[in-house]
C-alpha cells in the first residue's frame, strides 16, 4: 500500500523489549476499587447508586452526564462503600468524586445486555447506542466517547476506517499483545465498526517494530477472506500513532487545523476500542477492564496485564514484583506524552494505556541551557509549528503572540523537547500557554455573562420602577374622580 511522508517526527528508542514478549495476564481481583466519575472527555458521569448498595459486575454505577459523556459500570461485584473525593490520576494531585467499591470476592456478572445477533444487519444508530450503553471510550488514551465517533457516518461522508495499531510510544506493548493474542476479537470489532460507519475501506496500521503482530493480523485477515481490510506496516517513527499524522501517512490528506479527521472522510479507532466494541455487541458486556503495560527499569517484573478499572497503581506495581528503586518518574501513559502521577494511591481508568516507573538512567534530558535558535525543534515538529518562536514569546508572557503563531494547534507530542540540544522544556511552556489561554477565555465568557446579567437586572429594575410610577399616577387619578362625583352630588 502506498505510504506518504509526514514532516518532522523523531526516532526514539522503543524500549519495548522489556514487556513485548510477556503474554497478557489477568490481575487477581483487588479488594478495593476506586472508580472516578470522570474517565472520559465530556461531562462527568452521574451516580445512580448510593452508599451501601450491593452491585454485581457490569451493573450501571453512573449514567452519562450529557450527550458527550459515558456511563460507568461496576468492575466487580461488591458493596458501594463510599461516594466521595479521592486523589485523581492527574498531575495536579487534586481530588475528584470517586465511587469506592468493596469487592465481595465473588466477581459475579450481572445479566448481560442482549447480544446483537447480526451486527451487520443492524444500523449505525443501534451499534452506537450499544457502545454508549456499555461506556465505551477511546482506549488509546484520549478517552473520547466511542458512540459519538461510531455514528458519524450518518452525518458526514466517510470513506476509510483506520485502526490505530501503531503504538508509537516507547515502552507500551499492550496493543501489540492484543493484536497477537486476541486477534479474532479485534478483527470482529473492526468489522462491526466499519459497518456502523459505512466505509468502503479499512486500513489496520501497525508499526514495523511489531513484526509478529503484522504477520498474525495479515494472516487472520487473509484467512477470513475480508478483502476490504488492508493490514499495512508503517515506519516506526514517533508520533506515527497521532491521529492526524497517521491519516496523513496512509492517505496523503492533511487534516486542517481545528478540524477532525472525519472532516476529510477518515475515522481512526484504537485496536483496544475495537475489541471493546466486539465485547459490547457480541456479548453485551460493558467496559470494566482493560489491558495495560506496566514497565520501566524501576519495576521488577514488567508485563502486560488485564486490569479491572479502578485498581490502585500501588496494587498493580506490587503484582509486578514491586519497585526495584524509588522511580525518578511515575507516569500514566508513555514517556513522551504521559502524565506524571501524584502518587501510587491513584486508580487506573479507561484511558490508562500503561504505568511506567522509570529510573534515572532511562531519562532523556539534562541541565537547561539558553536557546540559540538552532532550529532543530522546527525540523522535528510534525505539525509544522515553530517551537522556538512560541517558547520565546511565552517566556516573555506574550501569550497572544504565541497563539497567533499556532500554539493552540500543538498536539503536545514532545518531539521538539526530545530533540532540543539545550534540553529546554518546550512542551511545558506550551501546556502552560494553552492552559492560561483557556483560563483567559473562561474569564472573558464569565465577564460577558455578568455583563448580560447586570444589564438585564438594570432593565428589570427600571421596568418595576416605571410600573410603580404608573400605578401611583393611576391611583391618584382614581382618587380625584370620586371626590369630584361626591362634590357634584353635594352641590
Amino acid at each position: 500500500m502506498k505510504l506518504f511522508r509526514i514532516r518532522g517526527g523523531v526516532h526514539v528508542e522503543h524500549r519495548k523489549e522489556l514487556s513485548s514478549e510477556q503474554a497478557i495476564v489477568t490481575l487477581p481481583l483487588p479488594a478495593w476499587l476506586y472508580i472516578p466519575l470522570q474517565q472520559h472527555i465530556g461531562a462527568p458521569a452521574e451516580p445512580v447508586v448510593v452508599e451501601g448498595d450491593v452491585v454485581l459486575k457490569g451493573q450501571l454505577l453512573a449514567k452519562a452526564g450529557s450527550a458527550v459523556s459515558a456511563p460507568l459500570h461496576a468492575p466487580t461485584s461488591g458493596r458501594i462503600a463510599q461516594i466521595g473525593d479521592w486523589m485523581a490520576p492527574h498531575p495536579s494531585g487534586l481530588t475528584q468524586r470517586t465511587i469506592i467499591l468493596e469487592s465481595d470476592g465473588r466477581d459475579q456478572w450481572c445479566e448481560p445486555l442482549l447480544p446483537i445477533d447480526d451486527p451487520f444487519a443492524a444500523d449505525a444508530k443501534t451499534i452506537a447506542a450499544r457502545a454508549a450503553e456499555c461506556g465505551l471510550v477511546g482506549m488509546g488514551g484520549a478517552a473520547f466517547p466511542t458512540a459519538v465517533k461510531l455514528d458519524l457516518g450518518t452525518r458526514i461522508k466517510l470513506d476509510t476506517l483506520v485502526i490505530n495499531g501503531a503504538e508509537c510510544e516507547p515502552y507500551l506493548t499492550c496493543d501489540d499483545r492484543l493484536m497477537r493474542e486476541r486477534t479474532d476479537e479485534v478483527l470482529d470489532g473492526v468489522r462491526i465498526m466499519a459497518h456502523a460507519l459505512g466505509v468502503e475501506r479499512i486500513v489496520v496500521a501497525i508499526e514495523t517494530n511489531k513484526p509478529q503482530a503484522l504477520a498474525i493480523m495479515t494472516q487472520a485477515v487473509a484467512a477470513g477472506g475480508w478483502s476490504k481490510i488492508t493490514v499495512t506496516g508503517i515506519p516506526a517513527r514517533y508520533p506515527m500513532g497521532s491521529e492526524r499524522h497517521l491519516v496523513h501517512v496512509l492517505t496523503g490528506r492533511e487534516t486542517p487545523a481545528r478540524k477532525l479527521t472525519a472532516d476529510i472522510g477518515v475515522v481512526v479507532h484504537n485496536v483496544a476500542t475495537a475489541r471493546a466494541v466486539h465485547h459490547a455487541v457480541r456479548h453485551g458486556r460493558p467496559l470494566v477492564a482493560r489491558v495495560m503495560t506496566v514497565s520501566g527499569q524501576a519495576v521488577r517484573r514488567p508485563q502486560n496485564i488485564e486490569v479491572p478499572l479502578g485498581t490502585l497503581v500501588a496494587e498493580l506495581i506490587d503484582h509486578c514484583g514491586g519497585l526495584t528503586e524509588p522511580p525518578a518518574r511515575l507516569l500514566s501513559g508513555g514517556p513522551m506524552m504521559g502524565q506524571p502521577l501524584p502518587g501510587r494511591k491513584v486508580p487506573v481508568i479507561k484511558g490508562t494505556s500503561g504505568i511506567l516507573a522509570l529510573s534515572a538512567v532511562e531519562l532523556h534530558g539534562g541541565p537547561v541551557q539558553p536557546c540559540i535558535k538552532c532550529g532543530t525543534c522546527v525540523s522535528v515538529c510534525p505539525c509544522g509549528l515553530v517551537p522556538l518562536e512560541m517558547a520565546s514569546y511565552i517566556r516573555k508572557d506574550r501569550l497572544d503572540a504565541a497563539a497567533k503563531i499556532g500554539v493552540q494547534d500543538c498536539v503536545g507530542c514532545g518531539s521538539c523537547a526530545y530533540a532540543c540540544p539545550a534540553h529546554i522544556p518546550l512542551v511545558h511552556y506550551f501546556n502552560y500557554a494553552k492552559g492560561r489561554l483557556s483560563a483567559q477565555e473562561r474569564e472573558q465568557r464569565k465577564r460577558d455573562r455578568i455583563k448580560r446579567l447586570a444589564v438585564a437586572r438594570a432593565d428589570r429594575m427600571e421596568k418595576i420602577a416605571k410600573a410603580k410610577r404608573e400605578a401611583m399616577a393611576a391611583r391618584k387619578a382614581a382618587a380625584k374622580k370620586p371626590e369630584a362625583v361626591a362634590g357634584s352630588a353635594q352641590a
Partner: protein
Amino acid sequence: MQEYVLMLVGTALVNNVVLVKFLGLCPTMGTSGKVETALGMGMATTFVMTLSSVLAWAIESALLAPFELGFLRTLTFILVIAAVVQFTEMVVRRVSQPLYQALGIFLPLITTNCAVLGVALLNVQEGHGFIQSLLYGFGSAFGFSLILIVLAGLRERVALADVPAPFAGAPISFVIAGLLSLAFMGFAGISTR
C-alpha cells in the same frame, strides 16, 4: 537619468541620514519599538520631508535668493515644515486613529526632526534644482524609513531575548544602531559624486 538614480541610492544608503549623517536619532529611537509604528512614522516623515524639501527649494529660489533674505532661511524653513507637519497630523488622524494614538507625541515632533531641516538646508548648500531637491528629499526620507523599519524588526526580536537589566530598552537599541551604522559604512566605497 543615471544621475538621479545615483542620487537616490546615495541619499538612501551611502549617506544615510540616520546612520551616516546621524540626524533624526530621537524619532528613530522613539518609534522603532514596533514594526507597525515604524512603518507609520516612516510614511509620515517621507511625506513631510519630500514636501518640505520642494517647498523649501521654492522659497529659496522665489523669495530668499532674489531678495537676499538669506538670514531668514532657518525661520522660513521651520515655518514651512511646521505647517506641513500640521497638515500631516490632520491626515493621519483622519485616516487611521490607532496609528495616530500609537505615534503620539512623535508626530508633531517631526517638526523638530533635524533630518527634515537638515535635508532642506543641504539642498540649498548643494545648489540643487527642483527635480534634484525632490529626489534628494525623497531619497533621504526613504533611507530614514528603511532604517526605522530595520531597527524596529531587530528591536522586536531583541525584546524577546534575555538582555541584562542595565542594557534593556534604549541602551541595547543604541548598540544595535551603532552596529548597523558600521555595516552601512560598507557602502562608502560606492562613489556617487
